[in-house]
């Protein structure tokens, strides 16, 4: 059997196939089709399966998918025209937020603009109090009138966030029925379903973002499922969530905000997996694709998950400057720097690169697809780092002449540089941008990057890793097999797992084990059912229980492990002790006399750890390691030099070479600078050492 991971990025769509019996991995990469992203995904899927003789009808167990669709919709503000219905008298909390400013001293601060303008934020006559009691009944005729007015004004989706709906959802649910009656085509998101938690601003912000992304996501997923059906795909189609878990497309279609970071999350999951397998405790993952670069700091092999995520920040590195999304997301740094990033001379005649990307369409000039602006990939080609005849293993020919002409015309000539100098400038500036972003990330976390190993992947990651490491003072980077598509492998390395959560407020003085047993049983049955449907045998299922708990008078919960099996009265003290020790661990204090309460009861139901061999089936082949040589730019010598080109598929463990050189595989190329060296480890990873680390620049 096979499991397949599929990642749609801004430029390329990656497909990775894992042979579940042998643990072997095969990969494919096609250009993304922005007008209809599912098309490229399906095409990639068919190609890879055809190459390997895999029958989609019966040989594939799971197809796990991730996409940047939702986050791009939010960043570009390209979602549905969305209205927000709130309790009458509270029209503005979405705009005012918590009223605090993300920079105390900047009087020119710009606050994030809400996704819903004030005229589409409307009050509905209804009120439920803090105890969940209806104080004012929902005024249905007024509600219907408001809906009609909004529809007339062109609204396409509606978010509903009534006060205390997390405690009593009756009015929000009824509101949805009323909207359906008035306007069946309008998509509706209820805050009591998206994120049933106290704090109206954060709940509304998350719900609005969900409504905003709902119509495009739902269209997309329906399209994808339909095409799979046409291919008579016989496995289970699943989506990755932003925190690394898995869900069904039905859930993703209702709560698209939960797949916000599903693509990038997979890269972080993969880097953590590699770190664990290879014994590197501290990792900086560096995933550079066509449109963006993503980095994640991973300590102890676990990517950090945050529940205080923000999108579309006004100031990239300032907490509080974006729109809050209070659902779990792997904590990552993302910048607009990729192979497709466009280079230009700005008004002052200075060379800038990105964040605008040529994406897949029109793409870099060298793709020969109507691109007219010079990009990082065009520069890399001119510098000799890419082989025009071996891009994507030769399946896509690149035009060096076109790249040279555009760099010459738009950059070199006006800036009075040679074309090579201009190309190196583009390459170096994008590296500097990425290094600066990584520095800020490290500073935010207060860590010294010199202690970290970089894991570089994504199509452009290994091309740029050497120079970025040098700038960051990182002495070593590692490139896994199939680096160009490795992020899609992240979908497959983690066990298949589903999360469940139930809210039940329980003071531990009133500990009621029967209710807890029922709640856990229900969730566990549901988890087992979904796993069985996905082909996991009952005896391979593991269930992890936990709870969100706090001192009764606190405002936020912490995660506490809950024992498995039937609970009895004797577990009360056990849970209290677990809470006290978790609280001590997190906050450095606890107190035995304070009332403790459980709020959410949670499980993670997981299948077995998949067998993933890092021994690449194509690795260690018998051919010549050294494939050819070609001219490439060596910055240390400031000129083009003839350098060796190695074929990654012919490198065996123990292989070693010195830079300057490149190692090529189908989906990516590893650039090794002068003074550096590369070796191949036991598992076939290429490990590159970076010499005489220069002092970081621009840190102060």
């Amino acid at each position, binding site marked *: 059997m096979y499991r397949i991971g599929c990642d749609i990025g801004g430029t390329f769509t990656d497909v990775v196939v894992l042979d579940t019996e042998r643990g072997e991995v095969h990969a494919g990469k096609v250009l993304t089709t922005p007008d209809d992203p599912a098309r490229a995904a399906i095409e990639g899927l068919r190609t890879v399966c055809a190459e390997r003789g895999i029958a989609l009808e019966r040989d594939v167990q799971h197809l796990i998918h991730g996409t940047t669709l939702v986050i791009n919709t939010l960043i570009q503000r390209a979602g549905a025209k969305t209205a927000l219905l709130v309790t009458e008298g509270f029209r503005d909390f979405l705009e005012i937020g918590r009223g605090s400013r993300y920079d105390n001293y900047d009087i020119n601060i710009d606050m994030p603009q809400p996704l819903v303008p004030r005229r589409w934020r409307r009050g509905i006559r209804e009120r439920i109090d803090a105890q969940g009691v209806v104080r004012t009944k929902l005024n249905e005729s007024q509600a219907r009138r408001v809906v009609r007015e909004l529809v007339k004004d062109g609204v396409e989706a509606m978010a509903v966030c009534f006060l205390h709906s997390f405690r009593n959802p009756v009015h929000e649910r009824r509101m949805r029925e009323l909207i359906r009656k008035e306007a069946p085509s309008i998509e509706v998101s209820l805050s009591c379903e998206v994120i049933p938690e106290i704090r109206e601003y954060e709940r509304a912000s998350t719900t609005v973002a969900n409504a905003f992304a709902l119509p495009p996501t739902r269209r997309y997923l329906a399209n994808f499922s339909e095409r799979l059906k046409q291919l008579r795909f016989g496995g289970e189609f699943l989506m990755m969530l932003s925190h690394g878990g898995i869900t069904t497309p039905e859930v993703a279609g209702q709560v698209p905000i939960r797949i916000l970071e599903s693509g990038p999350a997979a890269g972080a999951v993969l880097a953590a997996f590699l770190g664990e397998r290879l014994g590197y405790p501290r990792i900086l993952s560096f995933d550079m694709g066509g449109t963006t670069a993503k980095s994640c700091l991973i300590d102890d092999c676990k990517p950090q998950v945050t529940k205080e995520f923000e999108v579309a920040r006004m100031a990239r590195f300032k907490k509080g400057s974006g729109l809050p999304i209070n659902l779990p997301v792997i904590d990552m740094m993302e910048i607009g720097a990729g192979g497709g990033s466009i280079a230009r001379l700005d008004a002052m005649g200075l060379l800038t690169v990105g964040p605008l990307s040529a994406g897949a369409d029109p793409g870099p000039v060298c793709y020969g697809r109507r691109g007219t602006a010079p990009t990082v990939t065009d520069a890399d080609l001119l510098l000799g780092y890419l082989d025009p005849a071996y891009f994507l293993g030769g399946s896509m020919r690149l035009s060096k002449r076109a790249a040279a002409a555009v760099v010459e015309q738009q950059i070199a000539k006006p800036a009075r540089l040679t074309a090579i100098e201009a190309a190196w400038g583009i390459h170096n500036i994008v590296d500097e941008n990425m290094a600066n972003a990584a520095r800020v990330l490290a500073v935010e976390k207060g860590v010294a990057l010199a202690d970290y190993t970089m894991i570089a992947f994504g199509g452009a990651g290994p091309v740029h890793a050497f120079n970025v490491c040098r700038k960051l003072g990182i002495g070593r980077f590692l490139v896994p097999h199939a680096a160009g598509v490795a992020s899609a492998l992240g979908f497959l390395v983690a066990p298949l797992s589903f999360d469940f959560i139930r809210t039940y407020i329980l003071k531990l003085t009133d500990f009621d084990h029967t209710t807890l047993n029922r709640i856990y049983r229900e969730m566990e049955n549901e988890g087992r059912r979904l796993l069985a449907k996905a082909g996991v045998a009952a005896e391979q299922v593991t269930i992890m229980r936990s709870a969100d708990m706090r001192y009764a008078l606190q405002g936020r919960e912490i995660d506490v492990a809950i024992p498995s099996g039937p609970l009895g009265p004797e577990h009360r003290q056990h849970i209290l002790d677990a809470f006290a020790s978790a609280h001590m661990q997190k906050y450095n*204090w606890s107190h035995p006399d304070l009332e403790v309460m459980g709020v959410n009861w949670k499980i993670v139901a997981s299948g077995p750890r998949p067998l993933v061999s890092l021994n690449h089936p194509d690795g260690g082949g018998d051919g010549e390691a050294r494939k050819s040589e070609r001219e490439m730019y060596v910055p240390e010598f400031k000129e083009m030099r003839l350098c060796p080109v190695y074929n990654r598929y012919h490198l065996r463990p123990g292989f070693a070479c010195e830079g300057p050189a490149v190692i090529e595989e189908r989906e990516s190329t590893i650039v090794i600078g002068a003074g550096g060296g590369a070796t191949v480890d036991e598992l076939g990873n290429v490990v590159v050492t970076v010499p005489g680390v220069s002092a970081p620049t621009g840190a102060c």
Partner: protein
Amino acid sequence: MTTFDPITLEILWNRCRTILNEEIAGLIRAAFSPIIREAKDCSAGLYDSAGNFMTHADEGECHIRQTVKCLLEKFSPEELAPGDVLISNDPWKVGGHINDTAVVVPIFFNGRVAGFTAYLGHHIDMGGRGFSADSTSLYEEGILIPPVKLFSAGEPSLDIFEMVSNNIRHPEVVLSDIRAQMGAAEAAANKIAAMMGEFGLTGLDELSHAMIASSEEATRAAITAIPDGIYRHTVYTDGYDATDPVKMMLTLTIKGSDIIIDYSGSSPQSMYGINLVYNHTLALTHQCLMCTIFPHVRDNEGSYRPLSLIAPEGGIMNAKYPAPVMARHLTGFYIPSAVFGALARVIPDRVVADSAAVSNFGVIGTNERGDPMVGICTCLGGMGARATKDSPTTLFPFVIADIPIEVIENEFPLFVRKREMVQDSGGPGTYRGGLGQEIEVQVRSQKPATFFCMQERINHPPLGFRGGLPGAKADLVINNTIRPHPKKGYMLQPGDTVRIRANGGGGYGPPVRRNPEAVLADVRNEYVSAEQARKVYRVAIDSAGASVDRNMTKRLRARNGARGNGAKTTARPRPRTTQKRSPRGKPQRV
């Protein structure tokens, strides 16, 4: 003397800030009172062995620069042992009013005190009358905790815990918040010590010296860039009584790289709790100067060194112990108007028009069991407009966040009927001031509740700048009819309502120069009424409300010249001396 290369200094500085940030996040998450956990009214600082202020957490206000030095007047480092925890809420030493309580922990490294961490929180109750403006001495405002050891070598001073706990309304909440502050301060101290080990530092003083010197140098360079001169500005506040407005007179002298802040000529201290202590006046003034003159500087002892403050003792800006000071923010929120007004004479593009006062109130009711239930709420108003852009609804320039409605209704004896922006409240201008909000609350306890009004800028709206018009005045109404004395306490019956309006911010530049499309957008979003658009901005919107009537707008704007009526209305108003206020009817004075 060790010197630090710029990169190492940068890493250490950021590491210190990161540690303080991580632990203040822990304090906020673990705190019990919504004032700390939601409004984030707390702060954190790092100090060297002499108590010099090195850096602070990004979150929260920073008015604890002097805290550790003040505590060191009583405890010398030699008297301190590992496991000691110091505490105080003395307004003159800590945060300017009794609610602000600091927990200070020594950082021990190689057996010696290398420095200190301090975590300050605004506590929901410190006894006394409650959070109010109308005490006539500090003794009425609550229990004063002088600098004492709350823990000695890890052992709690149970006497102090018991004494405090018996003098406050919410001991479970307040003591838990103090534990959360301790947890944060100790964890931060441990992490700083670990950092010293990691980087091979023997103490913090050399690092402190380098950080402070670097901030001082940058601050001085920024001040030097401002032309020398004496810049004066006087503002009037509503004061405690409408008949007795407070005068705040500022003379700001810029001389080379120094600034002399002189509040001589300001009113004498008030009988009531609207006074400021010296350290707090300095901290707030410093923040206003940071916003305008040196926003890029990382503040610490070094950014204070070029400043000297003259504020006559016994004056409203330097009240003498035991003056009441609990509502010092009511006066303190005029400091920006004074500082920006003075600086407007030299750097008009770098100041903002007047911003809203902090409109807040305290309430003491009861829960179902009859136990006291204490609440403190703030109603945010508009920030003053800027030279190039409109302003949002936010607290400016000081920082606390709103408490969510859902939390207010859970934790305080209140039901919230409304919290929304008020149309037309933003000061009109080429750039519009932020809108004010209106909040209406209803007493929901079984028994009568005490309600403490703390409302300012009812008589003195935030003024516009350079032809911009003032933002809306603040307002306070009980049961839809009664306008009570805005700084006294009242006994309210269950079901009584209080409506509070915060100010809009002042506008910047003449409103008739505002881009008509921006006016249209404001009208469509109901920030501005069509009437105000027509009368004040002189923009005509077509009958469908969808576009600007260009011809009509041209005609409207041609009348009375292009400058419109801006100049007249932005003259600094004289203080009003009469205001009818009749606390008659239901509410009674406490």
